[in-house]
């Protein structure tokens, strides 16, 4: 789920998967059970800002990156992912955020999360700590440098190790992953061509190609495993409440 990175490079499937925004699309569920039929209407209510933040954060320990979809403009995408620009850094940094996307009707006064985006003049995106503190509102006019600075500030305060440096290391892996992905596609096509050949198939060659495919896929799996380990950085423990 989530948008695929718009980057100048055409990435292979492994890197593409890592560069997919991992959006959470929260839907507020009332606590009480209800029965509905075709005619009954249940009224919804806006939560307080604090309650809305708490609900969105859930049990995810990461700082928040919250975006609202917009009915009349494309600001949602522009605010975070600039068409034509290199979004890879943004997407990578977002992995250390709990990325939340809210629907267009969040602007309605009775929407449970309306307190976060009260009206049309509200920003389309903000980053904040998990409890909503240190909020930085952002817009489509925000430059990439300002966006990354805001993200870095929040990340630096939230994590025990700097994710920005880790993101740079991970980005270096993408070109190698692309090479391996391309190799798998070429080998699979070669195997298909050998199996579907008009002439007598070379079974030894098919077997060898199959082994090369397996080997390359193992290399990809090892790289992905290493990258996933790099993504795991502990958040700083929350400060105890003041007495």
């Amino acid at each position, binding site marked *: *789920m*989530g*948008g*695929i990175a*718009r980057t100048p490079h*055409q990435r*292979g*499937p*492994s890197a593409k*998967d890592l560069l997919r925004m991992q*959006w959470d*699309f*929260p*839907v507020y*569920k009332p606590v009480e059970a209800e*029965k*509905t*039929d*075709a005619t009954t*209407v249940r009224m*919804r209510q806006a939560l307080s800002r604090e309650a809305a933040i708490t609900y969105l954060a859930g049990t995810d320990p990461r700082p928040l990156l919250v975006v609202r*979809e*917009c*009915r*009349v*403009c*494309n600001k*949602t*995408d522009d605010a975070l*992912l600039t*068409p034509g620009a290199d979004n890879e850094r943004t997407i990578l940094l977002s992995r250390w955020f709990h990325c939340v*996307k*809210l*629907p*267009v*009707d*969040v602007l309605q006064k009775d929407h449970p999360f309306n307190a976060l985006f009260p009206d049309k003049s509200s920003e389309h995106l903000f980053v904040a700590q998990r409890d909503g503190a240190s909020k930085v509102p952002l817009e489509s006019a925000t430059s990439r440098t300002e966006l990354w600075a805001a993200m870095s500030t929040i990340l630096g305060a939230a994590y025990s190790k700097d994710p920005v440096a880790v993101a740079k290391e991970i980005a270096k892996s993408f070109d190698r992953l692309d090479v391996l*992905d391309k190799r*798998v*596609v070429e080998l*699979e*096509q070669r195997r*298909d061509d050998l*199996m*579907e*050949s*008009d002439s*007598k*198939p070379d079974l030894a060659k098919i077997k060898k190609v199959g082994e090369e495919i397996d080997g390359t896929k193992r290399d990809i799996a090892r790289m992905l495993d290493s990258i996933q380990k790099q993504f795991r950085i502990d958040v700083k423990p929350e400060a105890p409440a003041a007495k």
Partner: protein
Amino acid sequence: MKAFVLVLLAELFAVATVQAQVPPQLPPAADTRDEAFEKVDPYTKGGSAAMDRAGYVSFGPFLFAEGVKTQDIEEAIGTSTVIWIETAHFKLGSTLKTYKLRGDQKEAKRLREEFGRLEKRFDKFAPPRGKLDPWLRAHLFAQRLEELYTWFEQRFHLSDDEFDPTRRPKDSTTRTTGAYLGMPHKFTVLLLEKESSLVRFAKRFLDQEPKGYVRWRLGGSMALAISADGVRGYGYELESAFTCMVLAEETHNLLDGYRDAWTACPMWFKYGLAHVVSRDIDERWTISALGTTREFGDDSWKWQPRVGRLLANGFVKGFEDLFGWTKWDEIKPQGHMLAWSRVEWLLDRKGCDRRVLLDELCVPLLNLPESERARHFAERSRAALQKATGAGLEALDLEWREYVAKNYAK
């Protein structure tokens, strides 16, 4: 129920995460702007006589599934711009935006044929030039779904009467009481433009977070929710590709809903039949047959010569090789093509009682442990084919091979 949803989602997750073919160019950035739909259908004007002529029961609001109103869905996905249509056998919701035709000749030809059939349902119908507006897309899908249902009933010698207890013939052997192939409620379909809408809906009502699409059993109906965003995300831009995927997945639901069988039908038959349906629309887009398309625009979608060469080169085992599949990702590209070929051949084979075949394959599993499924599907498939054709597996296999050798172009 949760276990069943997870079974289907495991298949789906494999579809979404297995490496997709790289399209020739990146799809354009998603336009997340909502499109303003006309509140009243411009084709029927909402009139009751016009709706009757179109074969429609309601434009909503209505109960979508047990405990789920159309208003609940609108609230969950965050928009009230949903087109709702209830037909004889389906409840359909659509947030699909206007589709601009891309100049694909095959797609244009198929649409002209569909317009010819759709025209008879409306008092006035002027086929649009160059685009399909949201209401027209909904009408087209309503027509496609009902045509699929009719095809399914005709192909397997079923009828609405036998599922309606008030009209069932006295000598009917049908065992279930649900009016919709055995399900108590109509089949439900949500066609969503945005992936975010799909996930919001599934989170609210299923506690799941699908990618691209999800099939599930909600209350007493078999449901499908699919996002156009998700399908475009894998490089399939044409409306015909989206249509192929919708109808292929709905075929799975018809089989899962038949006599409330729910995942009882063996995978080789489900995927084989779904591929038959999809390829009847447009052979280029058998989307769930992952690995069969090498490059967009090449000839890899032409499966007959590929199957023919696989057979000639000795890479095809017997019928039984397909029977034991229990997971989607067990199916190799060659397996998809062979399942399609065998099912298509069976459906047309003289002396194959398709009704018996369907009945014997779609018997509910009754808490069968996962570890027993492969063996069970193999035994069930063997017995079903014997009963439906009067022939053993070896004889059938030989017959199919002769058919391929004679009829498939090389």
